[in-house]
């Protein structure tokens, strides 16, 4: 399962889901789904999100082994 720190990183630079969605060219609902681990984004979108936060992809997204 893929986990991510988008909500925390978003809070750090104080941008809303809507603002992040607009910058990524996706809808706010998609950002919401990613934050809640309901949807694993494509590599392209994942890399673009990481770039916006000025982080490496693995600092934003982590694979969590299922037990």
């Amino acid at each position, binding site marked *: 399962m893929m986990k991510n720190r988008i909500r925390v990183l978003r809070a750090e630079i104080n941008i809303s889901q809507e603002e992040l969605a607009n910058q990524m060219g996706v*809808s706010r*609902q998609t950002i919401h789904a*990613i934050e809640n681990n309901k949807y694993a984004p494509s590599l392209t979108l994942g890399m673009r999100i990481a770039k916006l936060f000025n982080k490496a992809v693995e600092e934003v997204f982590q694979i969590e082994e299922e037990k």
Partner: protein
Amino acid sequence: MKSILFPYRYKKISGLVFYLTTIVGAIIYLIDFEFDSNFVVKIPALIYDPIIGNKNGIWIENGILDELITVVLIISGIIHSFSREKMEDEYISSIRLQALTWSIYVNYSLVLLATLLIFGMAYFHVMIIHLFSLIILFNIRFQLKLRTYYKSGNDEE
């Protein structure tokens, strides 16, 4: 990646035509409407059963209401299913794919069940319904999933 979807502007009008044609088509079919003796016109036929018309070359006389409903329902259904959303993104593409997968599983499960349990002329009706069931199931599933999607996260910033 190049999009093979129809423009968003076709979404609403095709949906209106699709659901209206589905309802009208279902009603006409259920009341046992005489398709072959109404709206009869001369049309060209590639292959035809001589029982249903005359044998003047490739021209036959045929009630066209069923063909009309079939063509309108399939075309509007495809356009409605595969029109872009206002904000089309990869998550919506994923929802569309999941809805398509689900509808193929359900549709062909029903066809298998019908094949094993329904015989004679009744099976002919199964085949008629099967012409449209996939696109109807897909549209219902996709629209319900989209509704959930658009409602998601409304309580968040």
